[in-house]
């Protein structure tokens, strides 16, 4: 029995490795395309952030004479450039057209009012629709500096001269933070959701094309009927094909990890905190990695059985593709749920397929796994995978599925 499954397995592996489309989905996408796109994305984000922080901001001021100290502060900073604009309406248009970044309106007699210990409000006009804009923060910093100077003068006039006393007066009670999470937990919490997401998506994507090819593709090419006439049980054919789809899913997920790993290794070297992150990564020992890998097995098995069942039902490659597309949501939605910060691994979420795997991998990365829960998740996932595989073998024995008109 095993020998015939192996014969089918080896033949199918040979065939899919000769298929360019499979290689693209299984090898090129996870190892080249995804790291490349991620690299572009990271570079773009870093560049945008850097630009937002350092670009010279053109601005207009109405009522500059009302508070000369503020104008002096802006003038001292070379990252701000004041331009003349005739009216507030024109300033609004200029902001919209990206000619200037912001406009300030300083109320009349601002300097006098501040010297008389009054409070003034400076109006800031800027484009608040931009997610990467740092205009508000950068302007606030300058205004805060001016505000701090006036506050210091006022307190000094009350006889409180030292900056320490001034600080004590303003903030009688302060919070001194002591986070109990170690760096590994913090890293796991922030990046740990992303890694299982990649695992799951690639388990699905890597398995999809081989599944379609081995089921509907074989039907369409007319080779399935000749295979059914060979002296091999249909359950053996399904198992052979299932193992191929499973292998493709696992390979794709592992390659995606390797690709991302290489990318991170390169990126980490470019940032000063290299040593610390290296220490965190090295704290994830081999046992944790093996436990993470063990989670991949039922995940890939579930997807392989499901995709193969759908593919066998379809009459053509095109039909199978149209069925498998929506199936992506079965992988994406539960994986995305696990990325949400409010979702933590508890017994409730441990019962939700795929989401539980994603959360368990996150906990393993953090080093905070509850191993009773781990066993429950792994066991239930294997049971689901076995159930789907059983369904797939029974499905494959149905004449109405194999010879669907």
């Amino acid at each position, binding site marked *: 029995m095993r020998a015939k499954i192996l014969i089918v397995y080896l033949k199918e592996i040979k065939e899919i490795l000769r298929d360019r489309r499979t290689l693209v989905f299984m090898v090129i996408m996870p190892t080249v395309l995804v790291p490349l796109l991620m690299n572009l994305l990271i570079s773009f984000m870093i560049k945008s952030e850097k630009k937002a922080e350092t670009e010279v901001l053109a601005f207009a001021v109405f009522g500059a004479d009302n508070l000369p100290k503020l104008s002096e502060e802006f003038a001292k900073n070379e990252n701000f450039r004041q331009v003349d604009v005739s009216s507030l309406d024109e300033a609004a248009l200029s902001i919209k057209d990206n000619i200037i970044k912001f406009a300030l309106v300083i109320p009349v007699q601002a300097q006098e009012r501040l010297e008389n210990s009054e409070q003034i409000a400076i109006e800031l006009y800027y484009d608040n629709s931009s997610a990467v804009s740092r205009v508000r923060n950068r302007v606030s910093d300058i205004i805060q500096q001016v505000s701090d100077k006036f506050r210091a003068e006022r307190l000094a006039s009350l006889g409180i001269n030292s900056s320490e006393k001034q600080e004590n007066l303003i903030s009688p009670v302060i919070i001194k933070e002591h986070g109990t999470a170690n760096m590994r937990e913090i890293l796991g919490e922030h990046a740990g959701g992303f890694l299982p997401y990649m695992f799951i998506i690639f388990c699905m994507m890597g398995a999809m094309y081989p599944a379609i090819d081995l089921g509907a593709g074989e039907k369409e090419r007319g080779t399935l009927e000749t295979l059914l006439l060979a*002296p*091999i049980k249909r359950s053996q054919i399904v198992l052979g094909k299932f193992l191929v789809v499973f292998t493709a899913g696992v390979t794709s997920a592992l390659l995606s990890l390797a690709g991302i790993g290489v990318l991170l290794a390169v990126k980490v070297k470019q940032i000063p905190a290299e040593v610390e992150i290296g220490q965190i990564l090295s704290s994830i020992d081999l046992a944790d990695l093996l436990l993470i890998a063990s989670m991949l097995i039922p995940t890939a098995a579930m997807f392989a059985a499901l995709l193969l069942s759908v593919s066998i039902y379809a009459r053509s490659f095109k039909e199978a593709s149209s069925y498998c597309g929506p199936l992506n949501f079965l992988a994406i939605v539960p994986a995305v749920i696990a990325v949400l910060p409010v979702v933590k691994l508890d017994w409730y979420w441990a019962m939700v397929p795929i989401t539980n795997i994603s959360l368990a991998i996150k906990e393993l990365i953090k080093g905070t796994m509850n191993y009773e829960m781990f066993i429950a998740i792994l066991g239930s996932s294997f049971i689901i995978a076995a159930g789907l595989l059983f369904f797939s073998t029974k499905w494959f024995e149905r004449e109405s599925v194999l010879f669907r008109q």
Partner: protein
Amino acid sequence: MLEVEEISKSFRERGKKGRGLIGLLQGFRGGREFFAVNNVSFCAKSGEILGLLGPNGAGKTTLLRMLSTALKPGRGTAKFMGVDLIENPLEVRKRIGFLSDSTGLYGRLTAREMITYYGKLHGMEREKLRQRMDELFNVLEMTEFVDKRNDSLSSGMKQKVSIARTLIHSPDIIMFDEPTTGLDVAAAEAILNFIESCKNQGKTVIFCTHHMHEVERLCDNVVILNKGNLCFQGSIEQMRAKSGQKLLDKAFLALIGLGDSKNAG
């Protein structure tokens, strides 16, 4: 030797379906039961070519699929060299070969790889498989292209690979389902010669076709199906005699009730 005993197969007919959800539910429920093959019995001896004839939708493909174990009969059975189709389908598969107009080749494998695959599935030992492949590649004149990928072969070459796949395990009973459809004259002639050679080797041949000149040239006996029922069984001469027509096309039409007949009915 093939003995078919009162074999039947029914399906659920899909009626006119409504739109939307109603149509979907009707689709799942299925429709009226109809017999694609109804109580058909016949026998084909070793060294005999039996023609399987019938108009489109007569049940030929369903019958061949049952005989090749792809479909399970609803009723009745068939025995291949004494092995029962229902009781031991895996043993039956070892005894049969099936060739259709669809070459059904794995495009990304070479001819040699594909034939090896089927040989292994038939449980052939390595040395025996190698010898059999060499023999077939020589007889079918395939040696020049056995190591080329199937998707790069011409139609004639593909048909040869398909024949080699059918014969790799030396089956006793070979079924041909419209094997010359879509082939040029030379390729079709090669197939017909091959079918004749199977007969000469003492194999039982079931030959399904729509071309009456092929029937006249090759078949010892014919079986005609119409709407799932067996409507004629006998030799070519008996077919002519029963229909009262000299031309085989006309005799066939008369026997399925679509032409003039002096004696048919």
